[in-house]
């Protein structure tokens, strides 16, 4: 990234980051379809995954428009390789057990809801309009994932142990949400998006409140795994996810229903 990045170059990056977050975590959640512990959760998770994919279409669709090189949301979703993805590493982490999936969802939803809340006031009307639609969906996602984290954290000895293990495993991926770079600086300067670093306090308060209720302890170590939203380095999990998600469009380019 150079200091001479234009507003539209930064906006494209910012939109791809948002769209890749929802695309990758949405795909992860969709992997539960037909496998959830109970029917009700199966449908609820599928609904959340569909919300995420819907938001992806909007973010990546706008990204393609801003880029102006004829790429639409499908092109961006299915015809890029792992190193071109800009999602938070948290989003690509494996589902693990149901508890780990819900913990990942909660840690993401909490950040997502705060971030979208700021985007409502974006100086770019298109960004604000997508945030307006998405934030209603995400308010529900957060309510649901927070309730589940509390129920399982403050549940049986086994569910508590599993949720604490999930939190310990995923917490190193939280810090990346608050790392700012040149893209963020340009977007913040233009009033399009918030500076990620400025959201940490609100996030810690929200997450702390819920985890407290869930009788879970937030790990002391603030070490942050990073490289997803800058594209420097993804985890080994992303390639496997993309292989499954993209194979049809790669084997039969531009195949349609």
């Amino acid at each position: 990234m150079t200091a001479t990045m234009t507003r539209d170059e930064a906006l494209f990056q910012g939109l791809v980051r948002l769209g890749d977050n929802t695309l990758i975590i949405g795909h992860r959640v969709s992997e539960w379809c037909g496998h959830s512990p109970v029917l009700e959760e199966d449908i609820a998770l599928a609904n959340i995954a569909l919300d995420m994919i819907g938001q992806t279409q909007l973010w990546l669709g706008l990204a393609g428009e801003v880029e102006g090189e004829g790429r639409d949301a499908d092109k961006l979703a299915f015809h890029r390789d792992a190193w071109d993805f800009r999602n938070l590493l948290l989003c690509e982490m494996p589902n693990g057990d149901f508890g780990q999936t819900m913990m990942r969802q909660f840690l993401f939803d909490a950040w997502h809801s705060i971030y979208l809340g700021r985007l409502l006031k974006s100086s770019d009307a298109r960004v604000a309009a997508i945030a307006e639609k998405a934030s209603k969906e995400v308010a529900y996602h957060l309510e649901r994932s927070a309730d589940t984290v509390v129920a399982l954290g403050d549940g049986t000895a086994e569910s508590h142990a599993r949720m604490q293990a999930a939190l310990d495993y995923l917490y190193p991926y939280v810090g990346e949400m608050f790392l700012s770079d040149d893209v963020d600086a340009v977007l913040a300067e233009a009033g399009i998006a918030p500076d990620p670093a400025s959201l940490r306090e609100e996030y810690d308060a929200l997450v702390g409140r819920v985890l407290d209720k869930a009788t879970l302890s937030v790990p002391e170590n603030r070490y942050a795994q990073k490289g997803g939203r800058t594209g420097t380095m993804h985890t080994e999990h992303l390639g496997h996810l993309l292989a499954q998600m993209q194979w049809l469009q790669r084997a039969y380019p531009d195949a349609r229903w």
Partner: protein
Amino acid sequence: MKNEWPLWEVFIRGQHGMSHRHVGSLHAPDAEMAIKNARDVYTRRNEGVSIWVVEANHISASSPSDKGPLYEPSESKVYRHPTFYDIPDEVGAM
């Protein structure tokens, strides 16, 4: 230990001014989750503006074996239907 969540009956109101209608049932650990599950299972195609849930074991139901004494006596009482009145045209559709 019972591992199954209790059964809840779900009632949804389709629009303002209408009554809640029974739409089905689901399992949930408590009332709050039952409402969330009902939202996800029964309102995903824009069916509702309000949800009621009630734990199925709180519903008292008439017994199917009582249907003779309960319902047959009303079969022969057509005069209870308000179909013997001449309704003036001005009233319009009832």
